[in-house]
């Protein structure tokens, strides 16, 4: 009798687990399908892509041609050049931006200087203002300085530290006991020494999280390059893909899908390497990816 009962509970649990897994796998498939579709379509020959478009298994393979013609680029500029442009902008913007944010966050949370509350208020206000609003005057300024169509125009908007990163790092700094810096100060450590020798190892996870998201945002940014760039040799990857979409200049869907997938590879690689930081970072601060 007793055995029967535990047995039925166990089988009930099993059924429940099975139901859960069926639902979870179904949802996984829907979530990943667009990505799989992209990969599959990048392997299909141009004239079969839209015949059985939902199928994930190519009938006529043409992967090599798609990837080579896609990589050849557009308007005489190879795709590698677009990747290089994106990489330079992304790395420079991320390094400068996160470093600026770190310095500002340290000042806001650890040093009592005049008007610090006022400036922190300004940080919060910029957090609420959509960046697109500033783009017309920014464009006019850059035009006057003659830096449109240079990488500088794409790096500058990110380089001074985003309000969001400052905010996150301030939150993090506030959680670190002040005794830590006070002890170092007694030992004769300066403010900069405290930041880099004592606090940096503690805030490193937040710095990494911010860097990862900065990397994603800059790599995928489309709006600013669209406005600041008109010389195709300086295009970043999103702008290049946008050109590929124009049937008058690039009538090659296979190449478009192939390079679309290539543009996602750095993001996915980054995700695999830093997954732990990303998941923890979001759980902690709720950053929107």
């Amino acid at each position, binding site marked *: 009798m007793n055995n029967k009962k535990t047995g039925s509970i166990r089988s009930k649990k099993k059924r429940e687990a099975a139901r*859960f*897994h069926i639902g*979870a796998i179904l*949802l996984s498939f829907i*979530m990943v399908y*667009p*990505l799989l*579709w*992209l990969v599959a379509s990048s392997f299909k020959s141009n004239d079969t892509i*839209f015949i*059985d*478009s*939902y199928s994930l298994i190519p009938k006529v393979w043409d992967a090599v041609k798609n990837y080579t013609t896609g990589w050849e680029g557009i308007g005489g500029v190879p795709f590698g050049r677009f990747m290089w442009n994106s990489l330079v902008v992304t790395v420079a913007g991320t390094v*400068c931006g996160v*470093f*600026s*944010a770190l310095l*500002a966050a*340290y*000042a*806001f949370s650890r*040093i*009592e*200087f*005049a008007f*610090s509350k006022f*400036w922190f208020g*300004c940080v919060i206000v*910029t957090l609420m203002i*959509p*960046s*697109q*609003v*500033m783009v*017309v005057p*920014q464009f*006019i*300024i850059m035009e006057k300085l003659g830096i449109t169509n240079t990488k500088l125009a794409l790096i*500058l908007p990110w380089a*001074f530290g985003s309000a969001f990163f*400052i905010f996150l790092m301030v939150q993090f700094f506030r959680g670190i006991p002040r005794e830590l810096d006070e002890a170092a100060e007694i030992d004769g450590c300066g*403010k900069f020494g405290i930041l880099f020798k004592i606090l940096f190892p503690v805030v490193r996870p937040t710095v990494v999280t911010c860097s990862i998201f900065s990397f*994603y945002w800059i790599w*995928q940014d*489309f*709006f600013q390059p*669209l406005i600041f760039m008109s010389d195709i040799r300086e295009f970043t990857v999103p702008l290049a*893909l946008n050109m590929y*979409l124009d049937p008058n200049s690039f009538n090659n869907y296979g190449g*478009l899908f192939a390079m*679309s*997938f290539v543009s*996602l590879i750095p*993001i*996915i690689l980054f995700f695999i390497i830093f997954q732990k930081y990303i*998941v923890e970072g*979001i*759980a902690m601060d*709720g950053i929107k*990816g």
Partner: protein
Amino acid sequence: MSLSKKRRNNIVGYILLTPWLVGFVCMYLIPSGMSLFYSFTDYNLLSAPDFIGIDNYIRMFTRDEKFWQALKVTFMYVLILVPARLAFALCVAMMVNKKHKGIGVYRTLYYIPSIIGGSIAVSVVWRQLFGNGGVFMSISEALGIKQRSSLLGNPDTALLAIILLGVWQFGSSMLTFLSALKTIPNSLYESAMVDGSRPFYTFFHITIPMLTPTIFFNLILQIINGFRVFTESYVITDGGPLDGTLSYVLYMYRKAFTHFEMGYSCALAWVFVAIVAVFTVLLFWTQNRWVYYESDAK
């Protein structure tokens, strides 16, 4: 010789703040001033700005139908997308917040769209999935639903496809809900069970109230983010068909860089700032009524 501590703090503080201050002045303060000035002018980049008072604003509210269309599209986008995504994220978070094998794998798979979602490659895919002869059409045809046009080809449904793209990226909200769910003390659920509470009741009287800070935080961020929708409507539909997906930022962009009406575009930008500000303030204002902070309860 030695500076007073106060002065030293001021010097060090401002040295540390310099990069951000430079950015704030050059990227926000000066552009804001310029943009405010341009918003009262007629300016096409080539000739000098021509001061026209509040004409741009009057034109927007009285003679510009596209402005209202862009507002309507953006409001519909935000008001459907944000609740839908949050509800979906919460459901999946509750589903995944159990002890089963392979949970980590599912969580990762659900999160991937959030990471790649903003990229143009995904917009490219969406264009094909929901466009003419796309996957969506062939599947619904196989199910026997006849369609005269694709989802993206119909002005009434095109926005829906773009909203779907947003809901598909529910992963990061799901992760915030997951970590919030883990902080709800088990004792609350146990005492509810002892009291014979039904799951439905427990959900609405324990889970939801305990999650309200997370919901609030997500709402603020996602509403601000939602208003900024641009890439999707630019790449997937270019605002069409019949302006059915003309987002506010896309309209601003077109006014500035297709029609070269810089002054008008700046006026649009300021109205946009005002709308986002009103939404944010309203949300903060309602906060006391529905957001439950544990530290307040005594």
